[in-house]
């Protein structure tokens, strides 16, 4: 099985390499025909289509570097290298929250955001749902998952059913607890907060993409005394969750959660690769700040060169 995955990874690498090399060759072979239009020889210039979007080149280079770093980290982890990841309090508290709900005889509420499966935050949320559902099945706690998208409902049912099988309790799976409410943002809020007030869940999980409804959920959950664990990558909603919830997975922690919960070395390795990307970002910030400072102090050609170089690295 491991060999099969390894082979798949190598195939993926080959595909990724091809995907990287082909456009690069095209990009560097492109003569930027549009730039020639204003020159003296404009009449002789012939416009050609630009295959690669050159304005996205710095992003592409960064993506390739980070992608390669992640793949290398995964391979290193696979080869047996120890992977050390710091503990995440929010994920360690999952068992405690569900245990509390079980003791109190109250349900557990899981909200996978309000976006569809095209949103990666929803995918991350559904992944965490698997772990929550498994623990809930083991503890025999009632889990409710109201969704605002039909496909999310379908995916959530699959994941929860699989979690019940994994926990060795397939008979306790109840598809009726994973419902579609409405696509309408505030209609969904009304239904979910109504459920919260009537059924008073002891643990509330908010994992996915949230917008204005984040604080409506979190404050209602707070008012009923539930343990609340949130996770989102919407920067504008993070302060609300931090203020109203007991634990919050902030940005990258939220995406790292699925790897963290799986405990698989291969997945944990990808988090280490991610850290390499962070180091590159930090180095680029320092270089960019340095170049900007030099460009501001030194006038003339050197200053212009520094500014140009800074723009090139995406500063």
């Amino acid at each position, binding site marked *: 099985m491991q060999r099969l*995955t390894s082979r798949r*990874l190598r195939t*993926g690498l080959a*595909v990724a390499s091809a*995907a990287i090399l082909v*456009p690069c060759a095209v990009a560097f072979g492109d003569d930027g025909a549009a730039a020639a239009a204003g020159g003296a020889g404009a009449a002789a210039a012939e416009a050609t*289509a630009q*295959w690669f*979007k050159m304005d*996205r080149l710095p992003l*592409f280079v960064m993506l390739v570097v*980070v992608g390669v770093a992640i793949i290398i980290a995964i391979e290193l982890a696979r080869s047996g290298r120890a992977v050390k990841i710091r503990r995440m309090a929010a994920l360690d508290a999952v068992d405690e929250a569900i245990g509390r709900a079980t003791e109190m005889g109250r349900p557990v509420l899981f909200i996978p955001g309000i976006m569809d499966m*095209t949103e990666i935050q929803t995918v991350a949320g559904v*992944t965490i749902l698997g772990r929550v559902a498994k623990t809930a099945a083991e503890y025999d706690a009632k889990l409710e998952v109201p969704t605002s*998208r*039909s*496909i999310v*409902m*379908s*995916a959530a049912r699959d*994941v929860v*059913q*699989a979690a019940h*099988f994994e926990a060795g309790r397939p008979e306790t799976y109840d598809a*009726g607890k994973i*419902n*579609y*409410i409405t696509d*309408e*943002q*505030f*209609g969904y*809020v*009304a239904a979910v907060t*109504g459920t919260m007030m*009537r059924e008073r869940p002891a643990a509330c999980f908010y994992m996915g993409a949230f917008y204005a409804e984040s*604080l*409506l959920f979190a*404050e209602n959950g*707070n008012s009923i005394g539930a343990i609340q664990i949130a996770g989102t*990558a919407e*920067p504008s909603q*993070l302060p*609300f969750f*931090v203020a*109203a919830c007991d634990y919050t997975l*902030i*940005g*990258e*922690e939220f*995406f*790292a959660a*699925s790897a963290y919960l*799986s405990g698989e070395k291969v*997945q944990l390795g*990808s988090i280490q690769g*991610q850290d390499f*990307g*962070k180091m590159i*970002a930090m180095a680029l910030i320092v270089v960019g700040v340095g170049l900007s400072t030099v460009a501001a102090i030194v006038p003339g050609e050197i200053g212009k060169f520094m500014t140009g170089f800074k723009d090139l690295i995406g500063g």
Partner: protein
Amino acid sequence: MMQRTIPIAILCLSGTIMVAAYFLSFAQSWGETVTTWFNILAAVAFVLGAGNLIAVNLEKISSQRPGWGYAAITLGSFAFMLVVGLLKVGAVPDPKHPDVAFAGSYESAASPFGWMYEYVMSPLTATMFAMLAFYVASAAFRAFRAKNIESILLLSTAFVVLLAQTAAGMFLTGWIPEDSAWAFLRLDSIKTGIINHVQTAGMRAIMIGIALGIVAMSLRLILGIDRSYLSKN
């Protein structure tokens, strides 16, 4: 086996296409095609969602569970909007084809569907949204308790920013000339400094982390390493 292999293959293919569509001009239409496929899938899945909505609410009504009255209202509203919308009941006639009933516009507020949306749905939505103001106040009250050094810093920063937003900010420090050496002491200057430097720096750090997290997670999904979102049976 196929139950997991086919979704992973579809995900790998569509993920690669979406990445290519972002960087390659000629692949842009491929990305749009993938999005269209998803929309078709979502439209089909909506039937599943609507079926679930009806089943759950009917069950609530039949067993007279707490809040079953809301379930009845939900089903009644759902049926009404569905019939009025699909059959274009009372639709405003199209000036070009006044004799063809189905050519009329059902979205106009003059039609029952548009009227319900404009005068029932929109106010209800606005009411829910307006409640946010009270929740912000109660959350801020808890967050701004001076429990330790960090919360004192948070409280004092929020106090300065809030004060600068009000007329009191101008009243207190507005007399300092904008072109003087002491202009940095004006509350509006302090607020701008906090927002442009302190807050932006923090936000960008979070954004960089999020971007890297998305790359790592996407890669795990595209390469089929992370399959936890799939059914295991």
